[in-house]
């Protein structure tokens, strides 16, 4: 076992994809493995391109409403 992190430029392989899937409990049929690996490589490439975009301290575009449905805000 090595404590050297994977090179971020390393592309996923069918073996690493299978291992990842096993860790998260995702059953991946053998016939899906090669295509899934290719798709994941494409995804990583597209994310690398996004790194050019200056995100500064922008928070993500989530919206969460903490109010309780059906409860009058003014009620005590």
């Amino acid at each position, binding site marked *: 076992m090595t404590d050297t992190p994977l090179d971020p430029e390393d592309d996923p392989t069918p073996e690493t*994809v299978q291992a*990842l*899937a096993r860790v*998260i*409990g*995702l*059953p*991946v*049929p053998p*016939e*899906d493995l090669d*295509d*899934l690996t290719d*798709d*994941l490589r494409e*995804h990583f490439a*597209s*994310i690398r*391109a*996004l790194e050019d*975009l*200056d*995100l500064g301290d*922008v*928070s*993500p*575009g*989530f*919206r969460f*409403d903490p109010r309780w*449905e059906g409860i009058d805000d003014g009620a005590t």
Partner: protein
Amino acid sequence: MTALHELTIKEAGDRLRAGEVSSVDLLEATLRRIEETEPVLHAYAHLLAEPAHRAAEQADREMAQGRIRSPLHGIPLGIKDIIYVKGAPNESGSRALAGFVPDFDATVVERIRSAGGVIVGKTATHEFAYGVNKLPAVNPWKLGYMPGGSSIGSGVAVSARSAFGALGTDTGGSIRFPSAMNGLVGLKPTYGRVGRHGVVSLAWSLDHVGPMTRTVEDCAIMLQAIAGHDPRDPGSVDHPVPDYRAGLESGVEGLVIGVERDYCFYDGVSTDVREAVDAAIGELERLGARIVEVRFPQFKYMTAVGMTIMLSEGSAYHRGLVRQRGADFDRYTRLQVELGELIPSTHYVMAQRARRVLRDAMAGLFREHRLDAMLWPSTPLPSVPYPSVNDPRPDYPSETPSQSYDHNSFDVNVTGQPAMSLPCGFSRDGLPIGFQLVGRPFEEAALLRIARAYEREHDWFTRQPPVPVSA
């Protein structure tokens, strides 16, 4: 004389209100048309003839009592098979949901019913609206060609005149793409404009429900019926709903329309599409709009942002089902769900952060140039033979048609802006071409107004596909 099934929603409504036809007449004409065309086209996943008859009879009774609910009163419509209709199957194009019947109506279905609409059936969809499995319906313009997706049955049914209008959903172009391929008007409203409670999700933060029709006015009529706050949808926005037909005939004099060439008209835009869309731009300028060339280099990030969000949210939604019934998914859909599970959460959050940056940049562009709308091709190329959708394009080998179809569509799902596709001609092969109008948030009325001004000048909207009819 125009056959009943060929009338627009507006025309059919006028004749209903004049007492010249009944809702039952319209429904029976529609069912006859379905009987003629379905053996070839397969636009419907589930027909609802009996409940539709009861709804049409009810509409006629109300009409006889002088009660007219809306311009949709008594009109037969199709509903995409990921939108719940109480008591009707909702299989979402998947064997994994075979036999599933919801026990409530989606908010949009409640609203269609409240407006008096008659639901004639559930229209076919690509599995779970991913748009990647084999075609569930057939292109009425040219057999064997791609009819768009994922609201494929809605597009085919409205084009083939087996529904007067239909609802579709759009997460990355799935209303606008089949509208362009089928020569229709399709509108993806602003994010939050139309409620999604009771709609099978593909990606919560990108999903939209909207109308697909033959004319701009029909589109306005359907949007009017479904727009408005939905307290059961956390993404819904409580924003006033205007009268979408009020300004339809106001023309485009003085409106400013932006055209971005580097990305939206890239080299992958086919000659036929480029010529047709450029002609539409020239036409709008002749009608009084001011055309402004703009730059927006951020377009290049849109698809990566949209895909990352869509895949991550979609896989979260289907996480349980793919484990229980993965073997019943189409292999290509399942690959998308598997892929989304393997995307790191940091990538998802990064995409959601980038999304805000892109939204703000787009707002800045509209403000800087005082734009009322932008305009670009709905798809870079017309329909292609279905077997070739994943092969390199002969005219642009660095892309497959599938990749090209995604190029101009994800942008507005990422920014949440309203967008509509409308027909602007035909390719040399006789296949429909569409252009897209993109507006400011909650300003669908401006898009409808521009679209109507263009529509008045052309007959693209009345042309019918050469639908093969069974004996």
